[in-house]
């Protein structure tokens, strides 16, 4: 195998690893949208808070990293519950635009609050994970870890959705909201469970991203738009579609970044998105209705 092929293979592998994390990000947003029919525009800001949580628990207060991660997942899960109870629930009957504006407002509120509380300096865990060298290719350990954890989390969510009554109700509610009382389902309870789960997934994403990226009040802008675009590309609310779209996006970013700069990878990815919106406005995995 020539040098060029090894670079390409390494890039493809890194693309898959990135895809796993992006798939996890889009799963949380998709779950909430599919079940509650509200887009958490501030989803990435929950992740930002989770990253700060990791920074403080691990780097400042020296908690063991696993304890810090579990605490962070629980805390952001509670944030998800709070977001639903305080902002979304009162607006459930409101026009979609008002819901978007409200969660958009939460986005700026969280960014500003983080700036006031934590300052604008970039912070990191101060943790250096090794880079693995396999067959002449470099793969970072933090990416592998992130990919593995994201995959496990997605399998757990899949089992929850397919093997439990609550999971069945979550899938059902996304298909026909009005008749849920006839099944004996308390929709408010399912909304709360989903919001807690969506928050917990953002918390897990925060734990994984903080291994690779510095945290600052605006770090959500790095993940938020791309997560949203992935969900739209995979048809908003369609869990499988989001999963596929995440890997498509990740490979475009990764391979695009190999031939030009990393930033060009993002340019290609967003250009691809815009073209797709013309070609298949319902998303890659649009259902025949």
């Amino acid at each position: 195998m020539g040098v060029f092929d090894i670079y390409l293979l390494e890039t493809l592998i890194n693309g898959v690893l990135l895809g796993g994390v992006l798939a996890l990000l889009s799963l949380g947003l998709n779950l909430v949208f599919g079940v509650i029919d509200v887009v958490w525009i501030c989803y990435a800001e929950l992740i930002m808070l989770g990253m700060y949580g990791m920074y403080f628990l691990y780097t400042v207060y020296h908690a063991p990293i696993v304890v810090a991660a579990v605490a962070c997942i629980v805390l952001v899960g509670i944030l998800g519950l709070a977001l639903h109870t305080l902002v979304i629930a009162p607006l459930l009957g409101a026009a979609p635009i008002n819901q978007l504006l409200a969660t958009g407002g939460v986005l700026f509120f969280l960014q500003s609050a983080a700036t006031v509380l934590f300052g604008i300096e970039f912070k990191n865990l101060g943790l250096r994970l090794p880079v693995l060298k396999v067959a002449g290719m470099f793969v970072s350990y933090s990416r592998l870890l992130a990919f593995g954890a994201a995959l496990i989390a997605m399998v757990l969510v899949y089992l929850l959705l397919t093997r439990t009554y609550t999971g069945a109700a979550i899938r059902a509610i996304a298909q026909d909201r009005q008749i849920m009382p006839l099944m004996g389902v308390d929709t408010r309870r399912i909304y709360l469970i989903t919001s807690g789960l969506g928050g917990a997934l953002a918390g897990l994403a925060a734990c994984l991203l903080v291994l690779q990226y510095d945290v600052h009040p605006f770090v959500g802008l790095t993940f938020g738009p791309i997560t949203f675009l992935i969900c739209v590309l995979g048809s908003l609310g369609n869990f499988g579609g989001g999963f596929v779209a995440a890997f498509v996006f990740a490979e475009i970013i990764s391979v695009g970044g190999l031939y030009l700069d990393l930033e060009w990878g993002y340019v290609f990815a967003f250009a691809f998105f815009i073209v797709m919106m013309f070609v298949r406005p319902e998303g890659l995995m649009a259902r025949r209705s």
Partner: protein
Amino acid sequence: MLELTAVRAGYGTFQALFDVSLDVRAGEAVGVIGPNGAGKTTLMRVISGLIRPTAGALTMEGVDLLATPPHRIVELGIAHVPESRRLFPRMTVEDNLRMGGFMLAARPKFRQRLDVVYELFPRLRERRRQLAGSMSGGEQQMCAIGRALMSEPKLLLLDEPSAGLAPIVVDQLFELLRRIRAGGVTVLIVEQNVQQVLRVVERAYVLKAGSIRAAGSAAELSDSATIREAYLGV
């Protein structure tokens, strides 16, 4: 078993039911017939808690339905097969049935109820792994009724079960309803297919423009001019 007294209901400023009173006794099959837009579907929705009446009283075996949260009405033994079936189209037949047995009391009996439903509708057993939305209209109606039966209801509410089905399937459907009744389930059925429904029920109410215009035994109503008037005078 079920008693409605002077129930009024509507949507926003539109009133669909005007002082409707009716009762269903245990073991009976009762029909509600009437033209399109008479308020039949609203009536069913009020009973199962999907919409709240603006006035009146509803009780099920003496329990006040208005004091019961909508998602707990199924626990009182009322199962509603809604108009146009409302299956979860992208879930399998068995997952749809699982949703019908969602309430806590029904979960330990899931297998047992599944056997009862599959016994009644063998076609559903064959199709249990198939997506509900991919089945024929008749099969979907079987699935919708099966889903309602999963909660082991005392009272089954059926809203236009024959709508959109081929005549031969309609015959099968009414045959199945006789078997469900024979199993001891009380039935309240809303239908536009008057002739068929009067052959399965003992009594029926005629609903027109939101109020009860006539009531009587199936035999009386079959001969009555009131029915013809209700349909021809829409």
